[in-house]
């Protein structure tokens, strides 16, 4: 009985914040708040560059990696105004 408890995640009807993978969360976040400019025609900026930009803006360690601190920051309640305006 010392084994880890297996959590079962369910999709709750009407839940707007459905379970997302970390990568999906990062992609949505970086686009929504202006770190990845989806309108830029010169090609996609790398996610790493966008992550660096986001980490700098939010005062996090600038690793360019989707680390736990960055994921935590992305899950924080916040203002909907983009951090980087195109």
């Amino acid at each position: 009985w010392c084994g880890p408890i297996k959590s079962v995640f369910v999709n709750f009807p009407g839940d707007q914040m459905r379970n997302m993978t970390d990568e999906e969360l990062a992609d949505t976040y970086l686009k929504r708040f202006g770190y990845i400019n989806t309108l830029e025609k010169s090609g996609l900026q790398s996610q790493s560059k966008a992550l660096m930009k986001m980490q700098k803006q939010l005062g996090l360690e600038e690793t360019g990696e989707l680390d736990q601190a960055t994921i935590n920051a992305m899950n924080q309640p916040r203002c909907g105004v983009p951090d980087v305006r195109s």
Partner: protein
Amino acid sequence: YQTFAGNLKWDHNDITYRVLNYSPDMDESLIDDAFARAFKVWSDVTPLTFTRLYAGTADIMISFGKLDHGDPYPFDGKDGLLAHAYPPGEGIQGDAHFDDDEFWTLGNGAVIKTRYGNADGAICHFPFTFLGKSYSSCTTEGREDGLPWCSTTASFDEDKKFGFCPSELLFTYGGNSNGRACVFPFVFDGETYNSCTTEGRNDGYRWCATTSNFDTDKEYGFCPSRDTAVIGGNSEGEPCHFPFTFLDKTYTSCTSEGRGDGKLWCATTSNYDKDQKWGFCPDRGYSLFLVAAHEFGHALGLEHSSIQDALMYPMYKYVKDFSLHSDDTAGIQFLYGPKTGPDPTPPQPKSTTSPPVTTTEPTRETTETTPHPVDPKDDACQVDKFDAIAEIKGQLHLFKDGYYWTMSSQRKEGLNGPFPIKQSWPALPAVLSTAFEDILTKKIYFFSANQFWVYTGDQVQGPRRIEKLGLPASLERVEGSLPRGKGKVLLFSEDKFWRLDVKTQAVDTGYPRYTDYVFGGVPNKPHDVFLYKGHYYFCQQSFYWRMNSKRQVDRVGYVKYDVLKCP
């Protein structure tokens, strides 16, 4: 700090705002207060002023909405995005939107302002004890009518102070029913409803009919949130049902099981597996004041700051004792400059009955005798805010700092004056707070601070304390008056009014009433109220709201330009 591209800013310093709707989470007065305090954060450090409008288009239009709420940036349910605002400009620019799938509080759990009872609208005190048992939320225990109530002190058993908590059985907000309670059951679209519903709406707000049949009467209001209600999910407004079954296990309290985000939830029926009805449990919520102060920063021209302790940092963080960070101050002052001139200080009341002495005891015998420095040769058009305005002997009288002007109702003669008040009514102090003429007896009543005088021709009675009329001793001043005919006059102070029977010189039972309940659409704390040519005028700063006899606001404007016709 950052400003928007091109340093977008307002081209005027007298900013207007308007609250378009309210959240069911907090009493309207608390929401109004949170917004006013949020604007004050910015007006304290800049030359900006903020005036609330109740009709028309304001620079900053404030609204609550859920998900798709009419702009290209939908909200996302509970948590995540809390609010957004647009930089200064025309149209939607400058507007602030708040996600009503959030639980709006003052940042530390539900703030429940009571109504009725004997606590004069005080906030619930949680926990409180009732018959030896501790309660952390409003309860219907001890009542047969199902109305939730709370104690406003730690112990109802000892203090017996209580009030009723928001519920659809007590009142509604918005809609067209002037705050009347829901009527259950009610019929809508041929169906019978026994509780508030979101049916028939696409904005997710819960509503009810305030008569038994919406289809015939079309009368409705929105349901206030009960403090025990779940937030979001698919059962907004319903209470948790304990115990409940989830994945064949029984739960007697909120749980985060089944979720990857750790948020607490509950079922609103006995069996989630069968009914799939759920919602998030009430938590500390988000401080509307802090979020609004941040959003108003955007509405004034600030972008997000990268300093974590700055108000304009994009993440929400609750702080108990807020003070504006120097980065925010630098940002807003970059756009609008620093505040100029001294901070406004309220005039110090002086006693008329005793010489000035040093004392730590507050005195209630106060009459405002200290006039503000206004040059009497100035004409009325140079006065921004009059002490009192009243229609006396068919002429509008405008009082300010020991002087008054008159204007005939026909306005053919224009403004006359200034005349010294002492010349016409020698017993009066320099600063009046309101006046009215009793049409039946031709007596003129003048109020200043907590005293009043009655003039019959040259004869004067007074000063007498306003408690003699049955008004509360705690009232600092009567700020407005509306003669209602048949010897009745409404006396306004703060956000309430009383009805005075002039003949018996006593206020009627059933009062005070809240100004905004009866006179919807006008400022709920006007600094002056008067009757002029059959219209009610409610004044705040240099603006007036005119209301017709059907209590409809039919005009909002400047006292100076629209009433006095100043150039």
